[in-house]
């Protein structure tokens, strides 16, 4: 058994906001454990509670109940724990009239493992104008500031909040490549929040899915990926191949049926189905999650 504490441990974490007509739950009783040196995806629709979860974990906000432990200790006002964390919000505020270079210089002072050369090469690759005022940056350039601080800080627990927002295709690829390269050299715990699941799917080792403030999925990405399969072929053959697997969606077009089931087709099952002339297509992570959450919504009705 490993003796190191989890990178992040959430214990019945809840956050309620007072609104007219009662309290609104931004996060409801979330418990999970994030192991060190892995890449996590914090997924969910807009307003699902992703930002709230990250703000609570990093003590930037205060929970209504429950607690969040970073490497075994609450981050709130605890210098050694805070020094292990980096969380630049998607809607991060910067001091008035700050230029990009001011923000990067500040980060270089604050983060103990800051790599200045890495920051400089990322700035060049992402084509970020360092003498431009942050107020004047485009959405993509603003995301780039957060990406550079997040990567170059090399913090033991790094959160990227919607890092792809506004980035062009080249910049997305730069982030993806540099993240994986640097992670290989300097393993650490990384949490990527995103509502665009396919954008981050390839990097993720583990998936956390939030729905209306509740953690509805907490599983290794490989287990989720391919957990939903679409079968396509003659109705009788498709139904036979699907057997007792739970059906998530069915579309009939004359003698042909397209059936989406919860389950995977591998080895003998895959060979047998293909021999019957059935097209087998594992769902992407995003499709899987969409099917699973819709199934959840139906089950609630």
């Amino acid at each position: 058994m490993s003796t190191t504490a989890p990178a992040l441990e959430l214990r019945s974490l809840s956050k309620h906001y007072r609104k007219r007509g009662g309290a609104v739950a931004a996060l409801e009783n979330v418990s999970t454990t994030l192991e060190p040196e892995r890449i996590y995806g914090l997924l969910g629709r807009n307003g699902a509670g992703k930002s709230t979860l990250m703000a609570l974990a990093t003590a930037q906000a205060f929970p209504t109940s429950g607690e969040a432990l970073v490497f075994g200790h609450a981050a709130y006002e605890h210098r050694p724990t805070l020094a292990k964390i980096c969380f630049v919000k998607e809607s991060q505020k910067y001091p008035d009239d700050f230029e990009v270079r001011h923000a990067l210089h500040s980060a270089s002072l604050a983060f103990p493992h800051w790599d200045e050369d890495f920051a400089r090469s990322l700035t060049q690759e992402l084509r970020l104008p360092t003498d431009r005022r942050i107020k004047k940056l485009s959405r993509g350039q603003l995301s780039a500031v957060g990406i550079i601080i997040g990567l170059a800080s090399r913090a033991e627990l790094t959160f990227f909040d919607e890092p792809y927002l506004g980035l062009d295709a080249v910049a997305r690829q730069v982030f993806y490549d540099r993240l994986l390269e640097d992670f290989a050299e300097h393993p650490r715990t990384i949490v990527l929040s995103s509502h665009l699941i396919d954008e981050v799917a390839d990097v993720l080792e583990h998936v956390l899915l939030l729905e209306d403030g509740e953690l509805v999925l907490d599983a290794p990405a490989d287990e989720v990926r391919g957990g939903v399969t679409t079968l396509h072929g003659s109705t009788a053959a498709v139904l036979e191949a699907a057997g007792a697997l739970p059906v998530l969606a069915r579309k009939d077009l004359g003698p042909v049926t397209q059936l989406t089931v919860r389950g995977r087709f591998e080895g003998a099952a895959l060979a047998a189905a293909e021999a019957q002339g059935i097209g087998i297509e594992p769902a992407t992570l995003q499709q899987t999650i969409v099917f699973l959450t819709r199934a959840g919504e139906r089950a609630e009705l």
Partner: protein
Amino acid sequence: MTSSPILVSARVQATNRNTFVWVPLLVLGGSTALTLAIWWVVKTASAEAQLFSGSVQAPFWYLLVVGAQTVALTFPFTQALSLSRRDFWLGAMLNFSVFSLLFGTLLWLLGLVERATGGWWMNGRMFAFPLKLEGGVNIPEAGSPWYLLLYALMAMMALSVGFAFGTVYKRFGPAGLTLAITGTVGALIALLYLSIQGDWWPTLQAWFPLDRFPGNVAIITALIAALGILVSWALIRKVPA
């Protein structure tokens, strides 16, 4: 990491030289130049005119804004840099203190220039309090060391009062800020009303005798600054980023 988080916090907050160097100098330089220009016009029209100006107050209004923005904008950024709330607060206080001391020194030195040049060659009074009070009230001449203390304390007061209201805003939102400002103004009016109704003036004069004028102003300024500092400290520990 080589330096303490408090120093890191102070350096982050002073990273942009505009905040504590260029803009205060610009405001001070601008208001001074404008005053001198107006004086020159007045002097041309009437050679005997007595020239007083309160233009030196201009930078202090700017400092009120700096104090508020430190919480509204700089604080969330220090949280992204994983600095503790305590280190943010201590860094801010360190910067405010150093700035106030230097700014007080600058204004005092300008007062010395004012005296040496015979009131900017026009017998004007700008870097001393532009007051004329009756009966033995001791208002120091421009360049008096009193002004180093007074202006430094006034800078600290402006910064910490702005800071305190900024903290109220971050903690309780726009409604809380409005309530705090209205409440403060309301309390001051009520105090004024009570002091007139209750005939408190003799008592107040006994507490703060006019013949100890600069010292009293220093004490009152320091008390208001201390109140701002206390309020901000009491609130900052529970302010979300």
